[in-house]
């Protein structure tokens, strides 16, 4: 029988990543995590995750960068805030999941054509340029880029929604797009 080491040695961990996450406003309290597992127990999707929320918190603060950013966990998190409300140490786990998703997208750490980040990016583009989102176009663009088969499976539902006027071809947009751009561009500039 061959034995393989699964756990990393300290020298193999990414210290910068650990430092980054624990110095975020949402991350400062991570050091106080007692690994009780209340977050995982209260999470409605933890049974589908490759790492439970408790493991993600434990691993992220230690610097397991690749494992954490490559995990499906961060994309499965539905932002239900169960964990945040229940955590005895008041750690903002949901907000940390958002931070991890942002970083994974920034650094290209997600499977190609994986629908969650594709939809997030399409939504972002749409709202950034029109000020509002239009559901029909969001679904169309997302699935064309990630999973065209899904569109086929949605045609009968789509027709029903179209007939009742719940989806249409009109694109929603705001009049003050310039004002919104000024605000968002200024925030971006500050960021870089």
């Amino acid at each position: 029988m061959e034995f393989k080491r699964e756990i990393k040695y300290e020298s193999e961990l990414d210290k910068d990543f650990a430092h980054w996450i624990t110095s975020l406003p949402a991350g400062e309290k991570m050091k106080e995590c007692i690994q009780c597992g209340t977050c995982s127990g209260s999470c409605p999707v933890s049974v589908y995750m490759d790492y439970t929320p408790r493991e993600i918190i434990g691993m992220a603060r230690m610097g397991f960068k690749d494992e954490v950013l490559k995990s499906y966990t961060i994309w499965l998190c539905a932002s239900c805030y169960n964990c945040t409300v229940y955590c005895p140490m008041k750690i903002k786990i949901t907000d940390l999941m958002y931070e991890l998703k942002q970083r994974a997208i920034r650094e290209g750490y997600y499977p190609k054509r994986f629908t969650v980040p594709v939809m997030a990016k399409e939504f972002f583009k749409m709202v950034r340029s029109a000020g509002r989102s239009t559901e029909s176009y969001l679904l169309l663009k997302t699935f064309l880029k990630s999973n065209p088969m899904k569109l086929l499976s949605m045609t009968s539902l789509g027709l029903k929604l179209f007939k009742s006027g719940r989806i249409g071809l009109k694109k929603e947009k705001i009049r003050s797009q310039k004002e919104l751009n000024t605000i968002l561009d200024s925030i971006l500039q500050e960021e870089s």
Partner: protein
Amino acid sequence: MREYSYYPGCSAKGLAKAYEASVLSVFQYLGLTLHELEDWNCCGATFFNDIDGYLAVGLASRNLCLAEKRGLDLVAPCSACFLGLLKAKDKMENNTEIRERVLKGFEAAGLKYNGTAKIRHPLEVVINDVGLDKISEHVTHKLEGLRIAPYYGCQLVRPYSDFDDPMYPVSMDRLFHALGAEVTDYGCKTRCCGGALTGTVEDVGLRLNYILLHEAQRSGADCIVTVCPLCLFNLESYQKKINKLYGASFNIPILYFTQVMGLAFGIAHKKLGIEKAIISPEHLFATV
């Protein structure tokens, strides 16, 4: 007569047209005036936060600037909008770095932000500003015998809500009693519907909704009533797929709480968007 600013949110102009119709009808009936916020923009929902936390706050709080100008409480029916606005306000209050960046952006655009806008959900407004006794007095069509599973979902009650319990809220239960309906003991009232997962990771999303439907049926409910466009969409639109996948035979109407109120007040079905449902609830109200 009370007046409020109204933040419809993007869904109100699309999938959730029936929510908007029923909110407007019921508020008007109760003598509450809603003024749609002039040129409001998207709250950012969950997805904008997946991309950039700073921009998400800037985006959502532009609406708060607009509401401040008008000086009225801001009513947001969609749970994701309600949370998105509350979250932006919280970040502006408690995160100096975000606040400074966003304020600079507002300055560049000539907007003022003081953090005085009050964000409210219509469920809380009807209970606190109108009151359950008054609501009972308005009932012309008592919903006797109707058994409702009250479904609150996540983002209305967590993590910022202070008007009800984050895990076992009861405000809708009390409201339906006041309308003469029965409320079932629904153990999943704040269990997650998965949000966008039905679209993005279908297996998981469908399973979550199967559990919600199954428990509602077990509780003996005739219908599930929600406060959120996405919850309603998930629970209603995927029933056929869920039936096929799990060998079930659900045919459970899903309604907005304002539609139920409107029905009890005798408001015409058309004005409540009842006909927009995929699973018609008409049979439940045939006798009402």
